[in-house]
């Protein structure tokens, strides 16, 4: 389950942040928001360390940065020094391709926003269209996530049946 998406600028300034509660953009309580902000900052520190360490990591998708309490933080870096962070709930199965697809979709939304000559460069993104693009990407991710988890669960049950000696037509 995706919990939050954040876009951060070249000087680590926040450009966009949205919490998602069960796939919908989240409510107004401050305290949970602060936790996510804190996680983003810590994630950025990890990213800095990685950058300093390994100059050869030439992929935009940085993958899983770090697990934090019960969440996972994924990062994506662009050539224009923008960072996209996604905060996911730690689940048994996380399909990285889906996270990558989400990151790419957010990147495309960013490009679209920047290519608009009326958008203000270097300022937080307030475009409703951008927010809608991100919401759509998140919805797509959550759908795949649910499917993935469900089908993985079926496979697991099937295997458990086989191992226990039942043939795989038996329902548990």
């Amino acid at each position, binding site marked *: 389950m995706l919990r939050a998406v954040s876009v951060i600028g070249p000087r680590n300034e926040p450009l966009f942040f949205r919490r998602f509660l069960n796939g919908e953009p989240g409510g107004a309580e401050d305290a949970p928001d602060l936790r996510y902000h804190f996680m983003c900052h810590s994630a950025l520190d990890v990213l800095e360390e990685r950058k300093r360490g390994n*100059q050869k990591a*030439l992929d935009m998708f940085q993958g899983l940065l770090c697990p934090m309490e019960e969440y996972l933080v994924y990062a994506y*870096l662009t*050539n*224009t020094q923008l960072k996209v962070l996604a905060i996911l709930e730690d689940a048994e199965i996380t399909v990285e391709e889906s996270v990558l697809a989400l990151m790419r979709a957010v990147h495309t939304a960013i*490009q679209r926003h*920047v*290519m608009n000559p009326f958008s203000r*460069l270097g300022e937080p993104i307030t475009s409703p269209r951008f927010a809608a693009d991100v919401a759509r990407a998140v919805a797509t991710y959550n759908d795949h996530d649910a499917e993935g988890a469900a089908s993985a669960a079926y496979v697991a049950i099937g295997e458990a049946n086989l191992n226990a000696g039942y043939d795989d037509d038996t329902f548990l």
Partner: protein
Amino acid sequence: MAGERAVAESVFELLMFEAFRVAREAPGGDGGEDGASAEARRMEVKGRIEAMGFDVGYRKVERSATEKLLGRHPLELIKFICKDLWLALFQKQADRLQTNHRGMFVLNDGNFTWLKRLGHRTDEKSVAMAEHILDFACGILRGALTNLGLSTAVYAEIKELPGVSFTVKVK
């Protein structure tokens, strides 16, 4: 490619020339007749056009630099400009890149697309137009490099129409 929209080159050129005209004729300062004010006015127009270019380059690179993560070294970023950005803007790659490995780069284009309409004319209007075109192009390069993380000064020289040489100094 499906979904990609295209505009006729001539339409783009007309728009660009019109943008220059607006930059020239927009009200600003007190344009007197003596040399000093005329020079100040010229610099103002130049600044406006370069600023337009900066905005275009800054935004364009966001869209262009999306294939793979480029290294942080200036040389790699400039190579990207010479190949991918040049292709996107001028439908060809730059012809030659020279560097002194100390922050100075010279990008040569022997057949600069945007100058081809001017032929080999040397009348005042054509010279002024060429200058506008180059100021705009320098702005684009500076904007693109800025968004890629490099602070630079860019200027251009006509080598032999329609050849141009762009010098980039990394700050």
